[in-house]
């Protein structure tokens, strides 16, 4: 069952069809919520987003892709959460342990790579919030500029300029050590 069919059936009230969509986009939705700052509340945010998406499904333009439409709701819920907490949406993810084990025959090289990544992650963490969001969407979530604009509800020009400024700042932060 492709997205369009699952959406058509969900609109008639077929919850099993909607479950298919939820299962398909669950991991991506969690990743989006966590990376945009939902932290350990990502699961709540994602559930709420899927419930809301179902209730708003009639407003989804059927000729448009589902993925950015859904992620915009996830981003919006994350935004509401961090706003209600009244503080900055921190990026609280960790580097996975497997990254260190990627080159078992070259422990020094792997340690160096891990060290660089740790510093880069630290630099992304300390970016101004909007630049960080742009960088997270473009590189960590691998969304296109147009998708990023839709998900964050920004004009395309802001996506471009904030990504550009974020990259410049990152280059400034980590570049001098490389």
């Amino acid at each position, binding site marked *: 069952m492709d997205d369009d069919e699952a959406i058509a059936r969900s*609109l*008639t*009230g077929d*919850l*099993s069809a*909607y*479950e*298919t969509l*939820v*299962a*398909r986009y*669950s*991991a991506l939705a*969690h*990743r989006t919520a*966590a*990376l945009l700052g939902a932290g350990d509340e990502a*699961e709540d945010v*994602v*559930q709420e987003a*899927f*419930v*809301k998406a*179902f*209730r*708003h*499904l*009639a*407003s*989804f*333009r059927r000729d448009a892709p589902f993925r950015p439409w859904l992620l*915009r*709701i996830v981003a*919006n819920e994350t935004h509401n959460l961090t*706003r209600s907490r009244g503080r900055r949406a921190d990026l609280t*993810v*960790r*580097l*996975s*342990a*497997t*990254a260190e084990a990627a080159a078992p025959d070259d422990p020094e090289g792997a340690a160096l790579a891990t060290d*660089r*990544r740790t510093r*880069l*992650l630290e630099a*992304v963490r300390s970016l101004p919030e909007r630049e960080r969001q742009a*960088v997270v969407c473009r*590189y*960590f*979530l*691998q969304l296109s500029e147009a998708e990023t604009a839709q998900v964050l*509800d920004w*004009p395309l020009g*802001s996506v471009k300029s904030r990504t550009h400024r974020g*990259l*410049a700042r*990152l*280059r400034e932060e980590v*570049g001098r050590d490389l």
Partner: protein
Amino acid sequence: MTSEKDEGLEADLLALGAALDVPSPPPADVAAAVHARLRAGGGQGPAAAVRARLETAQAPPRRTRRRWVLVAAIAAVLIAITAATPQGRAAISRVLEYAGIELQLTDLPTATPTPTELPTAKTGATFPHRTPAVLGTPDRTLTSDNGRVLSMFWGDVTDGVRLDQFDGGLSPVFFKQLRHQPQPVRLATGEAWWIADPHPVGHIAREDGTRTPLRLATRTLIWQANGIGHRLEGAKNREDAVRIAESLR
């Protein structure tokens, strides 16, 4: 800037993203949890979800409620009850969200806001929009909120007709404080609501949720089409508003 350095940094960022550990529960569990929540909320479809949410709200007189519920169910419009804003919790009895407009039903007289206009920009609207054929080319067109709201004006600024189109399917763009329930109206293209009395209207910024009271709005028709929210203000009466709304091309 050197593009070679950029590419190196971009590649590093992509690799870093792939190496990030973002745990998520098994998709089947998430699907089951969402299913259970939708079923608990009346899971027969978006229309039933609306009905279920409305029935949990404070009940207006029974006949009105039945009509409201029936129309909402038929139209499958997107109404959701949200928590009232903390500052207005005592005064506001219900908050409905429809077509990108948050409707606050309140029993108290509302203060008249000082007229304010949103900061406008020359950037075009960021969404597809249309013009009502019966009114023809607007005398003035403005965009605001980073192209998220497009406003067209015909005739006198204070006494003319104004049509706002906005990309507000998901989070409200405007809020309105009403003392009476809006009346359901059938358009050829779907459902709409008619607000017959003057009411304060305000704007909710997407980026930080800032609420700006704008002015006292006159009679208004609100509806949603193709994911775009519409509010038409200043038509002579309900029939005139419907005629204008149905002529959108």
